[in-house]
């Protein structure tokens, strides 16, 4: 008999504790992100597709067209070209194409770049019905960003 009442009282108490917990959550701000409306800031170690790092003064890519990234890429998805220009030391990058459809985000290109000209971007909203949209012209992307 005393067990009956004990269970009754403790049961009722636990019900109110449960209400308290959900009540507290009700008052707190929402934690879900309204994804298409607002965007998440990606963590620093997020691996997106690669992008060129601009030179801080000129805004031009730091790449010197050594071709190490192209050689290091196991999936052969990078192709780049450069040309010699008057008054500029070394080569100037004219074309840098990343075929993202075959890229496996292994990061060999970033590893092999001795001049710090490549990094992982933080783009993640990459969706398209067309395959051609995933063949990125990284120079154009750099221009659009700046």
């Amino acid at each position, binding site marked *: 008999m005393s067990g009956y009442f004990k269970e009754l009282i403790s049961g*009722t108490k636990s019900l109110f504790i*449960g*209400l308290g917990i*959900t*009540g507290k959550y*009700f008052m707190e701000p*929402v934690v879900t992100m309204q994804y298409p409306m607002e965007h998440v800031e990606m963590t620093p170690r997020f691996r997106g597709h690669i992008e060129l790092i601009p030179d801080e003064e000129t805004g031009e890519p730091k790449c010197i067209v050594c071709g190490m990234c192209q050689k290091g890429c196991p999936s052969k998805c990078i192709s780049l070209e450069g040309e010699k220009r008057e008054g500029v030391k070394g080569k100037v990058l004219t074309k840098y194409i990343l075929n993202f459809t075959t890229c496996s985000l292994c990061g060999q290109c970033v590893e092999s770049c001795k001049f710090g000209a490549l990094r992982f971007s933080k783009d993640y909203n990459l969706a398209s019905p067309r395959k051609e949209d995933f063949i990125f012209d990284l120079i154009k992307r750099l221009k659009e960003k700046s």
Partner: protein
Amino acid sequence: MPEPFRVILFIIFVMAFAGLNAAYLVWCERKGAGHIQRRIGPKEVGPFGLLQPIADGIKLMTKQLFLPKGADPILFMAAPLMVMVPAIMSFMVIPFSETFVAREVNIGLLMIFAFASVNVLGLLLGGWGSGNKYAVIAAARCVSQNIAYEIPMLVTAITMVMVTNTMNLNEIVRSQAGWFFHWHIFRLDISLLMPVAFLIFFVCTLAETNRAPFDMAEAESELIAGAYTEYPGMGFGVFFMGEYANIVIGCALSVILFLGGWQSPVPFHPAGFLGVIWGLFWFLTKLYALIFTVIWIRWTYPRTQFYVLLNLSWKVLIPISLFNLILTALQIKIFPWL
């Protein structure tokens, strides 16, 4: 105001009230569920998703009304009405404010219980008429549950009738005038178990209206949608409206019996038209606070098992409510001056 005019006005008001309540309580439910789970809930249709119920209603209305194979056509079509109509009728006696009541019936409390009892038959026939196993199981569960919880509910209501000496809902409210500690829930001098009685009544309201954690009639995860499984379009919508109207009536009854109805917490009641608004304001505030609690409870507790549900009624609620009845009778008899 002439009587027929008044009655027609009230019918329109009650229909609008029941419809809007059903629509916007769904919205509240979804918003409440969202915030309890720290989400936002509906937000796309209109500001704060306020037009969501209208979109849902249009969707329900445009659905095809078809009859499932093996269903009993007459019962299948009549069942939603048998749930909806008594619920609407019950609004007739609820005093929203001192003079804002369709008809002051001197046995109003009995009337609400009488109409509410038809509701069970509607659900049962709807479930049986669908010709679907899940619906029949749900209907059978629903009946055992309703019968089990009607007993403590009626016993508690009888206790309150004993305290107030009347079944006129407006008189019951009038007897709680004054400060908020004159509301019946705080009247420990009438019965020591008054808050417990309120709790019993409220739990029974939850069970009678098939709300979580007692929603055995619906039980989405086990019985698809229970008794409503086979209902298409507006048949389902009418069931839903009836269910929400029943929630409103149950909560209104709790407010009237225990929380002072349209009485304000302070002894102040302006005269005339302002008094009507004042009473309406307090009644609706208490009513919606209680309805919010119902929603809150739904999103807090998981659904009980069926035998736990029946045990709770037969082993806990009925003995305590009977004890409360006897205690109240004794207390009234021993201290008749209170």
